[in-house]
């Protein structure tokens, strides 16, 4: 069991590490190498997709929810290892990708080094939210066509590291079953404080089970008014072997909270404008 804080200091890439690629030898097996300095940087505007609420320029109540979620995850980390976090759901179209992307951006804003992996090699969608083209991605990395360094991208200005799913494959489970996937994951967890993995839904596909089996925790997303209770229950049961860090209720519009938030933000904006006016 790796101690988090000790390992963190050792694992956290410092400037020396950033400048040169090195494999981390900590008395364990060798990992896939990753040179964060050499990763490709790409400009990405959060406003490309309206579903990305973090750093969108408009105050959004979802940002506060994400910050709350981020805080809770940090709190969990105080008692157990929590680096690789799978974000999944029971069935498709429940907003797990939206949650994963926004959570990754939120964590990245808190000065943590965060890697977002699109683990859905059947139907990659995260690149669209960033307005990016699909790269070589995870599928190429696991197929050893590309290295991890070549596959990962750093998104600016958020500083989020991003590994897209790559070209869609028919049977991603084969790739996930390879030891290389574990290596990749371990390398990533060594270089990043947070590795957020967006996976396919757990009920129809086995991908999330494999990924969750080598991850630290799973967060299940349900969509208000859409997710059936029996489906979610089934998803929870199917994740029995993994650690379920918690749930996220997506699409939950509480009118009172929205009005409180909007009023509060409006008041804040008004104060700010008045202050600027005085200045």
């Amino acid at each position, binding site marked *: 069991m790796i101690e988090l804080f000790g390992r963190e200091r050792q694992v956290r890439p410092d400037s020396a590490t950033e400048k040169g690629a090195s494999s981390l030898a900590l008395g364990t097996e060798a990992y896939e190498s990753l040179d964060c300095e050499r990763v490709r940087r790409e400009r990405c505007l959060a406003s490309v997709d309206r579903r990305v609420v973090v750093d969108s320029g408009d105050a959004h109540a979802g940002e506060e929810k994400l910050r*709350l979620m981020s805080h*809770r995850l940090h709190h969990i980390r105080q008692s157990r290892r929590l680096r690789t976090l799978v974000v999944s759901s029971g069935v498709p179209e429940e907003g797990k990708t939206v949650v994963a992307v926004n959570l990754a951006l939120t964590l990245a804003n808190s000065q943590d080094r965060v890697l977002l992996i699109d683990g859905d090699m059947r139907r990659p969608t995260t690149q669209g939210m960033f307005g990016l083209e699909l790269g070589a991605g995870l599928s190429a990395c696991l197929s050893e066509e590309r290295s991890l360094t070549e596959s990962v991208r750093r998104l600016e200005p958020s500083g989020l590291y991003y590994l897209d799913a790559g070209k869609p494959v028919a049977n991603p489970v084969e790739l996930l079953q390879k030891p290389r996937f574990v290596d990749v994951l371990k390398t990533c967890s060594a270089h990043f404080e947070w590795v957020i993995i967006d996976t396919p839904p757990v009920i129809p596909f086995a991908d999330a089970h494999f990924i969750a089996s080598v991850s630290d925790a799973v967060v299940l997303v349900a969509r*208000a*008014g859409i*997710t059936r209770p029996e489906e979610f229950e089934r998803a929870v049961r199917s994740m029995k072997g993994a650690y379920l860090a*918690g749930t996220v*209720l997506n*699409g*939950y*519009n509480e009118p009172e909270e929205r009005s409180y938030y909007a009023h509060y933000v409006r008041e804040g904006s008004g104060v700010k404008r008045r202050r600027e006016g005085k200045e």
Partner: protein
Amino acid sequence: MKDEFQLPEAEKKPIQLRTYTRMIWRCRWYIALPTFVLGLVGFVAARHWPYLYRSEALVLVEQQKIPENYVSSNVVISLEQRLDQMTEQVLSRTQLRRLIEQFGLYKEQLSRRPMEDVIDRMRSAIKVHLVSGAGKASALTAFRVSFLYSNPRVAQRVTNELTSLIIDENLKARTQQSIGATNFFESELDRGRQDLANQEEALRAYKMRYIGELPEQLSSNLQMLDSLQNQLRAANGAIDRAEQQKVYLETLRTQYRSLEMPDGTTKLAPVDPAVTARAKTLQELRQKLSELEIVYTPGYPDIVNLKEQIAALERAPIPHSPESSGSGTSAPASGGPRLYESALLETQSRLKAIDLEIQNNKREAASLKKQIGVLEQHVGMTPVREQQLAEVTRNYQNSRTNYQNLLEKKRQSELATDLEKRQEGERLRVLDPASLPKTPDVPTPIEVILAGWAMGICLGLALAILREMTNRRIRSEDELTKLAKIPNLACFPNVLSARERRSYVWRRVLELSLALGLIAVSVGAGLKTYWKL
């Protein structure tokens, strides 16, 4: 799993109104579509519905014109009861059948259903209800007759016919009842008369049987008793005097006989005629006195005079005639033995007379005693007879009173019957003839339309509830926490992509258009229905 967050157990929160409003919003089309569809159906139905029209007539109850204290009615059944009876008569199977055939009612129903069912339907369409007066709540002054039918003109005609039937039935009922009452009193009067005659006979028989012992005869009995007792006293007095006289005469006879010689001569001097006359006069006076004493009191003047005369005569010296002077021995005079014999004979005859008188007086006294005994018995029984007579008299008086009462009642009843026959008693008058209804009564077009809407809403709500029950979704954080049994990290608001947002907007526009279209169609249909009706 749960050690990181110790979230409290999901509290059982009361269901809020917001939950229902959200549900309604979610299922709005499940509710709206059936509502609009059935609402439109309601509009169409309102135009083609087989409405029923109610024609109504108002009948006034007029009280009798002659004051009640002069002639009181002998119809005791209240108007409500009579109305119920008349209604029963009018709504009888026979009457209704006649009306159905007369006016050609319910032809379509008759082709499909038996007559009995049609009659029941007609019976339920007829209403007769009382109307209270404006003054007293309990005073019933009028009633309404109404009939419900699909054709307003037919309804009016039938209502008029029903009103006429009720009025005729009322008149007939009242007359019959009045005649019945009079006949009843007549029969009761006959019985009363017979009873009175029986009681009179009983009283008469009683009086005849116990005549002499009746209380009203007590004073006369007592007077008679007193009189008889006086007579008895007088008779006894007469007997006493006669006895005394008898004793005197017997003494005299004895004296005469003692004077008789063996040769038939007498020692007595020849009788002095003056003495005989004196004795005769005394006897006459005494007899007259005794007769007067029977009738009058001792103070009566004649009685006093007679007593004085008798006393004077007794005091007067015995007159002697020249023929009677001698030694006392009877000398054979020319009239001497003849005078002695005549005196003895006279004495003997007087004794006989006295005896006879005594016997007569004794018989009379005995008779008087007997009569007195009877009278005393009568007087003694009088209290008993008085009580018995009181009972007999009471029965007679009761019968008599009863008879008089019945006689009076019969007279009143005959007056009331005459009043009814002349239709001067309480009668029914049509105040408002049957109306020609212009608008339907059952149901009204508004009711049909509203029923359509109401059914639509109910169906919509039912569908919405069914949907909610069969299409369960996770809708709240509490539900999710309870289901997953792991803490909820966050509730992320709904965010839509550009495409999703466009789709959402288009969907909303479509919904709004559809809603406006449905509203427009409903309003149009409503207006059209309104103008049509």
